[in-house]
Structures are given as structure tokens and as C-alpha cells.
């Protein structure tokens, strides 16, 4: 059975001289220009303005601490177990406080490996890790993306700054 | 730490009554409590040696039963029932009165070593609640006035 290739319909005269189509195209670009000039542009002035990210946006992690500064993490290794990117390394140690018993001696997230799936946050039984909306943490070296406990406990500050900025932009 | 000769006689009588020595554990602990005032860890070990038992097993038994005093008690061990019937009939008030009179909380012993106050479970005399037991004697249908009278008689 022969395969019949459907040929496009021959162009009409007006289509063949292109000019109406060109004018139509010019009209479209002009429409966009006028719309943008009237304030309908989609870009934002990034460093000054911030995009409003959705509430479930997932970016840099934070490890919340108790009021006394003690880390909430008990090093149960659920996050490192569930992590599909193997980005989390945890080592546990004995806490001086017998009520807490176990805490993380070493906790590190390789943000370059992280795929920001949020599983660690979901699996954490102690609410000891969250993904913030802070997506501004680029550096120029790989080590800079290794977030240990000392840095992870402090990224929370950046979150509030970011949210303040967002509120200002609104 | 050793039993008196009379107690030893009793022990021998008890041991002869059972096919295995372990069966005599409860009565022996009672004897120990009578002899030494309370069942200390040493007393447990002594009883264990009499029965050829490991001391931990004796410890398990003696701590299980509340009638064995694990700590020294005063001359008069005042045990107030605070179980349901007695509580309904005002046992808590009785305990308060005793606390006030003796100046101690339940579980404590007076400074002169005379009285120990305890809250205990059912003493099996619900018909005459509230009830307390001082050493081996029951005092029933207690009121505040009766307590004064009873304690006064003991001093």
C-alpha cells in the first residue's frame, strides 16, 4: 500500500507575496512592545526585585535549633537514608544531655548533589531540617556548597531576610 | 546479719514443710522483716543464702510485694488505705489530718523515728471504710476525732 504524503495546500496569492503575513507579524511584535511599555513585562529587576516563589518552593536547607541554640537533629540518619542523591552525610555522637542522648557530630549536605526533592524534610522525625526558599547561595568554589552544621543552622537568618525583601517588593 | 535462734527454728520448720526450698521464700522474707525491721539488700542476700537462691531473684520477689518495707520504718507504721471505697469515705481527708498531726508526708518517718506514714492499696475492709492499719492492727470507720484518740493512745 502506497503511503500518500499529504501535500500542503498551494499558497494563495496573498500568502505568496508574504506582505500581509509580514504585516501581521509586525503587528504582533508591536503589540508586545506596547504591552511591555504599558507595564506588562514579565521580567523583574532581579537583584533589587525578587520573584515571589511559591510557598512550597524548595531551596537551601536550614537546621533549626532549640531556643538555647541546641541543634534539633538527633542524627537518626533518616534523611541520609532517604536522600535519592546521596547528598547528606551524618555522623552521630553522644549528647551531654542524657535527655537528648544522641546528636549529630557531623552533618553535611552537598548542595551541588542535592536535587531539592524535600524528602529529607518530609522524613525528619524531629523537624530538624527544612528547605527554605533561599535560592541565592552561589559561590565560586565547590567547597562553598558543602553546608555543614555550623552553616546550616545559620541559613535561617537568610530566610527571614529574603521574606522581608519579598514583602517589600510586593 | 543473722536471724535469732527462735527465728531460725521457725525457718527450719518452714523449710521442712515444702518440697523445694524456694517455696519458703515469702515466709522467710516476712521473718526477715520482723527480725530486721525492713527488708534491706543485705537481708535479701541473707535469705537467699538460706534458700540457696541467687540474690537477684529474692530481690525481685521482695520488691514485688508492697508489704515488705524496703526502707526502715518507725515504731508505728501507719498505713492508710486510699483505694476507692476509702477514698469515697474521705480517706484523703484522713491522710491530710495525719500529715498535720505527725508533720510528715506519706512515705516519710518522723524525726523521732516513731511514726511512718504510708498510703496503701485496699486493706480488704471496705465495709468499714476509711481504714488504716498500724503495724498489725486495723482501725476502722475513721474520723478526725478518732485519729486524735488513736494517736494519743500510742504515744
Amino acid at each position: 500500500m502506497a503511503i500518500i504524503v499529504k501535500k500542503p495546500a498551494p499558497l494563495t496569492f496573498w500568502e505568496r507575496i508574504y506582505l500581509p503575513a509580514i504585516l501581521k507579524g509586525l503587528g504582533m511584535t508591536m503589540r508586545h512592545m506596547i504591552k511591555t511599555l504599558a507595564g506588562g513585562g514579565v521580567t523583574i529587576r532581579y537583584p533589587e526585585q525578587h520573584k515571589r516563589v511559591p510557598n512550597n518552593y524548595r531551596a537551601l536547607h536550614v537546621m533549626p535549633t532549640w531556643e538555647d541554640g541546641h541543634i534539633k537533629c538527633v542524627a537518626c540518619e533518616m534523611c541520609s537514608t532517604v536522600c535519592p542523591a546521596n547528598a547528606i552525610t551524618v555522623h552521630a555522637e553522644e549528647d551531654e544531655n542524657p535527655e537528648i542522648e544522641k546528636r549529630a557530630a557531623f552533618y553535611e549536605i552537598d548542595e551541588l548533589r542535592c536535587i531539592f526533592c524535600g524528602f529529607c524534610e518530609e522524613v525528619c522525625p524531629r523537624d530538624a531540617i527544612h528547605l527554605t526558599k533561599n535560592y541565592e547561595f552561589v559561590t565560586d568554589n565547590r567547597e562553598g556548597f558543602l553546608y555543614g552544621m555550623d552553616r546550616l543552622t545559620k541559613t535561617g537568618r537568610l530566610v527571614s531576610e529574603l521574606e522581608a525583601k519579598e514583602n517589600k517588593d510586593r | 546479719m543473722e536471724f535469732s535462734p527462735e527465728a531460725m527454728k521457725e525457718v527450719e520448720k518452714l523449710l521442712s514443710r515444702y518440697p523445694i526450698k524456694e517455696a519458703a521464700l515469702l515466709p522467710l522474707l516476712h521473718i526477715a522483716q520482723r527480725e530486721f525491721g525492713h527488708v534491706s539488700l543485705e537481708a535479701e542476700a541473707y535469705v537467699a543464702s538460706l534458700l540457696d537462691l541467687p540474690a537477684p531473684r529474692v530481690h525481685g520477689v521482695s520488691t514485688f510485694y508492697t508489704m515488705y518495707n524496703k526502707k526502715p520504718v518507725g515504731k508505728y507504721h501507719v498505713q492508710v488505705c486510699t483505694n476507692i471505697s476509702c477514698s469515697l469515705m474521705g480517706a484523703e481527708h484522713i491522710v491530710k489530718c495525719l500529715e498535720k498531726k505527725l508533720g510528715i508526708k506519706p512515705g516519710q518517718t518522723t524525726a523521732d523515728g516513731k511514726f511512718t506514714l504510708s498510703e496503701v492499696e485496699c486493706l480488704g475492709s471496705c465495709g468499714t471504710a476509711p481504714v488504716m492499719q498500724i503495724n498489725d492492727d486495723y482501725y476502722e470507720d475513721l474520723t478526725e476525732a478518732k485519729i486524735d484518740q488513736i494517736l494519743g493512745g500510742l504515744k
Partner: protein
Amino acid sequence: MPKITIDGIECEVADGLNVIEAAKTIGIHIPHFCYHPALSLVGQCRMCLIELDPIPKLQTACSTFVKDGMVIRTNTEKVIKARKAIMEFLLINHPLDCPECDQAGECDLQNNSFEFGQGFSRFEEQKRTYSRDIPVGEKLVRIQDRCIHCTRCIRFFREIVQNEVMTYQWRGNNTAMTPLEQDGRRLDTNYSGNMHELCPCGALTLKDFRFKTRPWNLANTESVCPLCSTGCNIFIDHKQRKIFRIRPRVNMDVNTWWICDFGRIDFGYAHSETRIAGPRVKGADADWKTALDTAAGLLKTTGASATAILCSADATNEEALLVKKLAAALGCSAASLPAPGVDPLEMEDHLLLRADKAANTQGLKALGIVPDPALADKLSGGAIKTLLLINPFNKQLAAALDGVRDAVAKIPNLVVLDHNETDFSKAAAVVLPGAVWAEKNGTFTNYKGLVQRINQAFAPAGKARGDFDILLALAQGAGADIACKTHIDAYNEIRDDLLKLEAQIKKDIEALQKAAAEAEKA
């Protein structure tokens, strides 16, 4: 052989089994906490409740023994409801701190609460708690809050260790398992470590393993303990080429459910700082080719009468075969040295530990590598100019060499094959870094002739190589024509010898037992 019906499945099971074991034979798991096949029955956790026709009330499976015609149901609504009720009671006081708990991941309570627990608690009062500094010995960590009062620990100490030291304390809600160290009873027996597996919740965990890693991160390699001639079956739990713990592997012929704490904890030498870093020739680092060539050359220099091979009984049967072939090629003798006064059958305690602190004395014997009492004299007399010393780190060989330590160190052509540094390796002309047992494949023959396989858990550390490969290279360097290139070939070659030995030992042991029985009668 009673015929019973479990959940509608008719089956025939062995006599004298209880329902838990009977159900296990047809693959039905009945959850339980207090029951353990090695321990006496107490039937107190109530988790194993089952329906038994025609009894109206639920029965405990652990204390119900099979009878012909029994009809058992383990998955009815009534049973499930009962299990859920039991779990709810057990979880009233259990802290549910699985994130912190070392047992998480291999915890009966956790597993059963996944199946029968509920996601919330109706218990609104304060949970009872205990102080955390309750003494429990050097090897264990005890969190009494987590205890579910199964009394396995009490029964283990009473019945298996025969050293009753744990007991209940108080009653009802306040019940606590407590050790009472009196009259010379100590918690730190050589078997306390077994609590780690025995405890069905996280109340007793191993201090040595505490917080090291999570059990689900570990790979489990089946192996055999090398620390004495009992040859307990073990799991090597390891991660990233590092042993994290040793667990017993059930083998009713050898170690039943237990291992001793030496075997459990003494694996540090596999990762110690004294592991020999790489091959050395005359104290200087060398590459493997140089070292092996030099060693093979040295072994041939002084002639058969002045050459000897001394091998510890930690070598596998396959390595022993190569040792024998190497000796044949060199024309010299291969021997082990007798540890002073060690009888391979002698026990050091009533349970598992044996006086013979080498894994494969019997295997070496089967291959003809036997203690040579004359060798010590030859060594001290200076008759031996060339010595291949295999694994002098082994305690037993080290003890046997104690008297001739200086003489051996002075041997000019001393070749040492070992995994950890010793005085001998420091004095040796050539040092060949070998593997520890977790790093090699092979078989050990235990005290009663049982040949047991050890599996390689991970590759030898650093530049070390498997002893089998090293010996193979040495033997080939010495001119031997060796057909068996792998440990499996080697095993096939010696299988008959080993089996013969096993039969022989069995006969010997029976004879000994008979003699002992007769002596007792007389």
C-alpha cells in the same frame, strides 16, 4: 509427626514444636517478644496470641505445643484486635524515640508496631521514665524507658550464662529490669553482648556499636569467627570497607544463637594503625613484584635443611594447602608451633569459648601441618637460616614463639606474611602485607572437624593482598607448579582430606564421651 492446620493450611510438623515454630516451618510469622527458642517459656508478652479451636479464648502460641488435629488461626479479626491491643499497651510507656535509638531498623517492637500499632496514643498521662545512669556493665547501654518487660535478659542470664544477675524490680507500671551485682555476680560476662540481639526493643544496646551507624546501612557478609577453634558462625556487618560490628549467625551445630564478646568486639585489628601499610624489603618500601621476587629468591638461598615455614593456625585450609606445596617445592618442612598446653577440645567456659585461640588448628592438622616441637630448638640453635613466618600476629603463635623471639628476629632471611606489625615483621628481611579474615575467602575447620566457609566482606586494606594470592605467587616463584589458581580449586583438592578428618574427629569425640561416661559410672 502431628498433622495440624494453620490458617487453613494443612501440614505435618515435627513433634514437640510450639505453635510459633510450627507456623515458622510453613512461613507464617507469629509476632512475639518474650519467646525465644533458646529460653524458657514465660508467655507474658501476650503478643503471640492465636485462636485455637475449639477454645473460646485466645491462646499464647509460644506455650501451646502442637498436637495431632490442632486447628490454629493466626490472622482472624479477633487475633489482630488482640495484637493491636497488646501493642497499644506496650507503647504506653515506650518512648518511641526510634530516631535516637540504636535498635531502630532491627527492632521487633518497631516492626510489630508498624504492623499492629496505631499512629496515635490514647494515653494522655506522663510516660514513666527512669534515670539514664542505671549501671549495666561495660559493654551495654541501657535505656530502661524503652523496656517492654519481656524478661529475655533475665532468662538469658539465668539459663544461658548461668549467672543470674538481672531481675525484675518493683511491680506493675514501675517494673524495671535491674542488674544486682552481688556475691561476685557481674554483668560483664563474656556473653553480655548477646543482649544486643536478644532485647526485642532498644533497652539494651551494644556500647561498642552505639551511634556508629544505622543497621540498614550495613552490608552483611556471612563468615566464621576466627578467634578460637569453636568457629562460631557470624555476620560481618560492614560499610565502606570497615567492620562496624559482628553478629551471631544461627548454627545449631556450632554456636546456636550466641557468640562470645571477644568475637563480637575484637575486630579492631582489622582497622588498626598497626596494619602493615605495604610490602617492604629490608625495611624499605617496595612494590609487590620486587617484594615477592625477593622473598621467593630468599627462600631458595640456604638449602632445604636450613629453611623452614612456620604458619599460624589462622590460615585457611586453602592457604595451608599452598603452604604445603611451597614447602614441597623448597624441600623444607612446614609446621605450626604448639601453643603451650593447649588442647583443641578444651573449653574455657561452659558455652562457646575454647582454649585454642586459633581458627583452623584441625584444618592444618588434616593437611599435615602439625606442631613440630623440634623446630623451637632449631630456631633457638640457629640452624634455621631462612624462615617464612606466616601470621605471627596470631596470639597463639606469638605465645609459642615467646621463648625464641630473639633468635627468630636474628634469622637473616626472615620473610613475614602478616596483616599487623609485630616484632617479627619489624625485623624481617621481606614483609608481605596479608589480609585479615574479613578480607579473604576460604574455609576454616573447627574443633570438631566441621569445615566452614568464610566469605570476603571487602577488599584487603591499602596495599595488602589476600594471603592465598601471596602464597600462590611465592610458590610459583619458588618453582612449584600449582594447578589450583583460586581458593575454590584449592578447596576441591583438599575436600576429601578434610572430610576424612571430620569423620575421624567425630569418632574420637564419641570415644572420649563414652570413656567419660564409663568413668562416671565407675
